[in-house]
């Protein structure tokens, strides 16, 4: 399938401040594309430029190959779901969803058929005459999405729409959104600061930091092969070590821990807690082994971690290790020394 959206070297300046800097990417038709970044990284500005509420200082945005320069928001084939949802409080559910269709000067029966179809798709049959202020958070969410989707946009832009929901509902809506997107096939561009939302839902994720795209990749790729130190630290949990020396065979950390990995000039090393293997079977060629001492056990059900210190490190550098909850490791306790292994490919140095 072709590219529905092309963002070409777009920059946005507010006075001296650069909100978005030379961002360049394409989104495939029918894809679920997420832009992941902490608040203030420029992701909302980027989304608003695609929607037409802000204008790029440099570069161009093309939808289906057509430049959007000078085209106002109401004329662009995109719709946006706002962070605040922006449901019209003076209208009921039906009127909210029908609002955009009425602007297209469609006939009443046509509008009614489309609105009813969309409401049943998001599971809101029978809510037509309810006021939007009477709905629960999840229902309001669905009205906002229905109101945009009923317009049959080429691209649906979503600005952290799950931000206001409580955790349980958010988990639920994540799955629901993903399924909805698969079903209707509209291209979604989703911005969020929550990496779990991005990882679960997206086909492609762009990690944004200080106005720049650090990496664009599939969720799996992003997690397994972070391209920059920022991505390695931002996506997923990681143990972070400062590398002070490196030679053709080894990396040496601040605390003098020597790791057998060749990467001259490396400055940082990231190790994921879940990449570490406890009591590895000896002899694996690509497995680096070392011993650690357990400082404390941070029990959190399936997410339990061991807080340990690396024995080879003179300053006692800390290492978090995921602890599988099975009988094998039940007897571990504070002060125990334990052998740990890691596959060389899981040592990410930058």
């Amino acid at each position, binding site marked *: 399938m072709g590219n529905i959206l092309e963002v070409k070297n777009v920059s946005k300046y507010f006075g001296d401040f650069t909100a978005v800097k030379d961002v360049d990417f394409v989104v495939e038709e029918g894809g679920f594309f997420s832009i992941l970044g902490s608040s203030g990284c420029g992701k909302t500005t980027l989304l608003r430029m695609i929607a037409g509420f802000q204008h790029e200082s440099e570069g161009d945005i093309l939808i289906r190959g057509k430049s959007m320069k000078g085209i*106002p928001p109401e004329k662009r084939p995109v719709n946006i779901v706002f962070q605040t949802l922006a449901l019209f409080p003076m209208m009921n559910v039906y009127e909210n969803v029908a609002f955009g269709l009425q602007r297209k000067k469609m006939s009443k029966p046509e509008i009614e058929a489309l609105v009813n179809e969309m409401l049943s798709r998001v599971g809101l049959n029978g809510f037509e005459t309810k006021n939007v202020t009477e709905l629960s958070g999840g229902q309001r969410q669905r009205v906002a999405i229905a109101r945009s989707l009923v317009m049959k946009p080429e691209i649906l832009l979503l600005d952290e729409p799950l931000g206001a929901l409580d955790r349980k509902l958010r988990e639920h809506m994540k799955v629901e959104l993903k399924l909805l997107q698969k079903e209707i096939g509209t291209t979604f561009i989703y911005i969020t600061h929550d990496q779990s939302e991005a990882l679960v839902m997206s086909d492609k994720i762009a990690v944004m930091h200080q106005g720049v795209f650090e990496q664009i990749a599939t969720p799996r790729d992003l997690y397994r092969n972070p391209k920059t130190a920022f991505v390695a630290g931002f996506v997923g949990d990681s143990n972070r070590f400062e590398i002070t020396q490196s030679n053709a065979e080894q990396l040496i950390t601040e605390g003098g821990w020597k790791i057998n990995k060749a990467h001259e000039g490396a400055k940082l090393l990231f190790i994921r807690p879940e990449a570490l293997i406890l009591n590895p079977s000896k002899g694996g060629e690509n497995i680096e082994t070392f011993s650690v001492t357990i400082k404390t056990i941070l029990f959190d059900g399936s997410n339990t971690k061991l807080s340990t210190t690396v024995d080879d490190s003179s300053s006692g550098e800390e290492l978090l290790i995921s602890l599988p909850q099975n009988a094998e490791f039940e007897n571990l306790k504070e002060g125990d020394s334990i052998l740990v292994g890691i596959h060389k490919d899981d040592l990410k140095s930058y």
Partner: protein
Amino acid sequence: MSMERKGFNVTFYLLIIPVLLWLFILIVLPHIDLFVSSFQVEADDGKKVFSFDNYLAFFKQQIYWLTFVKTAAYAIGVTILAFVITFPIAFYLTKVTSKKNASFLILLLLIPLWVGELVTVYGWMVLLGDHGIINHLLMSVGIIDKPMNMLYTNFSMIIGLLYMSMLFMVVPVMSTLESLDDSLIEAASDLGASKFTIFRRIIIPYAMPGIVSGAIIVFMLVIGDYLAPNILGGKSSLWFTEQIYNQFLQTFNWNQGAAFGFLLLMLSSGIIWVALKLSGQKLDKVGS
């Protein structure tokens, strides 16, 4: 727990008593007295007797109810004009200009209130008179060759009424517009709405409680005003308050004046009730 509750009650009553006294002595008592006297007429022997004559006089004498109809019509007109003039101002102050500019501009809006109505009314006389500033300017530029008759007309009266009441429309409308989330406007525009549609379908309905409460205040102020119609309106603009004034202080028929006072209260309340029904607003929502 019960002690705290009691303590709260004592404080509550201590605080509310001055208000209740104020209301009772200055508002309720005189009104009861006026209400009673509005149902009395002086009999031939000088004794007061119960009668509906004072109220019936309003309907029997054409001049009285015509004055009221005219007053009410002008008050409604001034209210609508006040809305039309001030809504863009309120919108500009809350949604367009920066917060810093807005507070300065609001201060400017408040200045006429500091001066007092009588002074501003005389100010308009200076501006609008036959030898006033506006006529003088227009004549010296050569647009007109003899003075326009502006003062002591319905026009000058409307200007005066508008000027004293406009601010009471701006403030409640601003407070509703302030809570209007900008993303509602953006969402409407995203869904293909033109500026006019956004205004008609989103902004006006959202501001409706503020508009209605502003309209009630303006309407009440205008219909009960005495200075502007009396001074700026001149002989041709008879206001219902002037009828009341005449009854009390020119013919010394206090009973008739009291009846007119209550008629003004009831009829204007009735108009507001109808307006609330028509706009689909509830008084408690408008008041908040």
